[in-house]
């Protein structure tokens, strides 16, 4: 079953490229050259590779955040809001705390970002667990609230007075070390990888993970066996929020160096997409996220060198999603047959 998942995703990727290739050929370009430019644009050279990785980190973290909440059967659309609040929290610690050593400063920034993200996510979690309020509604609404809160903060109390809505730049001690210069890729990549490994371990090798998964798969069973399903659900949501906050912190500390108003245009939604395509399988999330990051960062080079419009890549991604979800459709049909 698990092996099948990988094969299916791979087949989906190949088919979507084949279809994309046909479209490119019809448009009068050479598909092979186009794709080679796409991959060169994504991998060849420090800058290109760095750009890919830079896009990969928030994608993989937000996908992970979504997956963790899915583990407790909460469909958390609110990762974007958690990311924003985490980002502004990190920025605040970043510019207002001075005179501490770099590791401590970075730690403080990340800590506050994660706490803020967790607390923010706890609210829809509590509403869902104790009051049965649909989490999709609350988290979508909470996204707008979170973005507006950060807009206010960045325009008034935390404004950098620079003519644009942004905070003062964070102290150098709070900045994440850049790798692959001149791109903005940074050691946030390693933090992200560590977090993925940690979450995998937490979910499958600890009592906490046992509780989380148990509640997500069957809350009745959990209550019967003595796991407080409501508390656990809120806990899972908070963990998800903490990861969302971390993603925001890394964006601020590694890439922008300050909090910019409206800096993320739906990063978390791309992450959610990656998680859904990966069917919340933690080991698949990095693969899918990397694939999406490659397409996004390579498309620029492709457009520049071949003239094939960038939006074609969006079409390929869309095709990929259709194929990946179609597979889900087959699975659904199979299950229904089994049940009948």
């Amino acid at each position, binding site marked *: 079953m698990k092996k099948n998942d990988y094969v299916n995703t791979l087949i989906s990727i190949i088919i979507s490229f084949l279809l994309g290739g046909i479209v490119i050929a019809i448009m009068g370009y050479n598909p092979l050259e186009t794709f080679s430019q796409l991959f060169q644009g994504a991998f060849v050279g420090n800058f290109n590779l760095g750009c890919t990785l830079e896009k990969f980190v928030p994608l993989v973290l937000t996908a992970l955040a979504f997956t963790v909440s899915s583990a407790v059967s909460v469909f958390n659309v609110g990762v974007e809001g958690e990311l924003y609040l985490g980002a502004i929290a990190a920025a605040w610690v970043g510019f207002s705390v001075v005179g501490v050593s770099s590791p401590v400063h970075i730690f403080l920034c990340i800590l506050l970002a994660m706490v803020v993200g967790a607390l923010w996510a706890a609210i829809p979690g509590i509403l869902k667990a104790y009051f049965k309020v649909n989490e999709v509604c609350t988290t979508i609404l909470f996204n707008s609230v979170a973005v507006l809160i950060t807009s206010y903060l960045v325009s008034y109390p935390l404004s950098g007075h620079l003519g644009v809505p942004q905070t003062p730049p964070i102290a150098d001690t709070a900045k994440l070390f850049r790798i692959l210069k001149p791109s903005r890729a940074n050691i946030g990549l390693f933090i992200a990888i560590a977090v993925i490994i940690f979450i995998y371990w937490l979910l499958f090798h600890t009592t906490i993970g046992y509780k989380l998964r148990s509640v997500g*798969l069957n809350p009745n*069973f959990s*209550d*019967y*066996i003595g796991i*407080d399903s409501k508390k656990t659900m809120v806990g899972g949501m908070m963990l998800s929020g903490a990861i969302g906050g971390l993603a925001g912190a890394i964006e601020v500390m590694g890439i922008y160096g300050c909090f910019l108003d409206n800096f993320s245009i739906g990063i978390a939604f791309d992450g959610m997409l990656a998680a859904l395509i990966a069917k919340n399988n933690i080991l698949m999330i990095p693969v899918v996220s990397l694939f999406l990051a490659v397409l996004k960062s390579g498309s620029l080079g492709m457009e520049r060198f071949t003239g094939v419009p960038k939006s074609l890549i969006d079409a390929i991604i869309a095709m990929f999603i259709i194929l990946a979800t179609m597979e889900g459709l087959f699975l659904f049909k199979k299950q229904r047959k089994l049940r009948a």
Partner: protein
Amino acid sequence: MIGKLIEMTDINKTFPNVRALEGAQFDLYPGEIHSLIGENGAGKSTLMKILYGVYTPDSGTILIKDQEFKSLTPKQAIDLKIGMVHQEFMLVKDLTVLENIILGFEPRKSFNRINFSATNEKIDYYIHSYGLEIQPHKKVIDISVGEKQRVEIIKTLYRGAEILILDEPTAVLTPQETLKLFSILNLLKDDGKAIVFISHKLKEVMEISDRITVMRHGKYIETVRKSQTSIPELAKMMVGREVFMNIKRVPNTPGDVILTVKDIFVPGDRELSKLKGVSFDIHKGEIFGVAGVDGNGQNELVESLTGLRPIEKGDIIFKGHSIRNLSSLKIRKTGIAHIPEDRNKTGLNNKFTIKENLIANLYRKKPYSKWICLKNSLIKEYAEGLIKKFDIRASGIDIPVESLSGGNAQKVIVAREVDLNSELIIASQPTRGVDVGSIESIREILNEVKKKGAVVLLVSADLEEILSLSDRIAVMYEGKIMGIVSASEATELNLGLLMTGGKAIEKE
């Protein structure tokens, strides 16, 4: 002899992972009651659902009134005057009985309005000529299970059925209701209708049938006339070996009171008080049976005892301490284990592996976890031990529980709960939907528990199970205990009367 109504030959059907039917066959004459028996999963329902057009067979021929079919649709089946009463009733809860009966076959008058008066007459005819007492204008949600069944039968008759398939019709009925159903079936038979009676209760089969077909593991075994067979012979054919379903009650010496339930009131899902003042004591070393038709508060009783449902009024004392409204975890810690009624919804996490299900009580205890780390090798050892000890047949401990058969899945729960060596085991319907072999071993395990000095609170709708295991039996009806009888005084008749709210017949 009159020609056959139905002849099904060499029917094969494969579901993913399972060969449900392998060369199955069946025939039916007009005016007979033909029973189809076999264990759970023997393919009885599957075969009949093929006849009714719910499933399409992989191969085989179906001959209905000399017309040959490869497969049918329910629509065709209805047109051929076949009607089926499914195990789960197919009724719309919020519509009235009458609306349910005519649903899809409404007689019309001008402007496409429904002609209710025409229907009324027709339904009255069925009510009077077959003793199918129903109240056409009540909502289905408000009528009893027995009445729902009669509604289902009328529904099929209304659609013109000459052939009635009843899938385990007595599973939900009290002994008295069963007798009533049998008299209805006999009237229908006298009227020339042919009836297929699916069951695994041999006593009933011997009572009602003209002929009996036995199936085992999807295969046809034999068809016999009732006059030429006996219960032991049928049981042997069903299981493929001799069965000794007479697990004997172990004699007991009742000790001190261990559990006292004092006048508890508990809300149901819909009602304010589903339990209305239930009280009883359980003594050490006994199996205390709770009998009753499903839905008379047994479920609420079990849930309130195990901390899954709040208690409004009254108290529960276990070993001298009140466990009223404690959390399920705290109640477990006092030494109460629980085999819940619904294994798929509550008892198991179907997507979890066998190992993860077996460790559910112990995963946070030493040595199976340290701090938050699970010790996988120890857990594996423990799970493998339980699988051996309780004879759970599975291809490995890392496969999801949902791939196990009902009997083996139930044994996973029994193993997990019994292995705790708790002082009180609350077992709710422990053998429901389980094959005969597993029933035997689960009952054996419960007897073992009692021999070791622990107490079992056995809730079951299966009277035979209650009678063969319990030392004392409480009968519940509409949220109250109608009476507590000791094993020596209990008879099916006595319990049956209590189950319907009557008084037990005093022993002379």
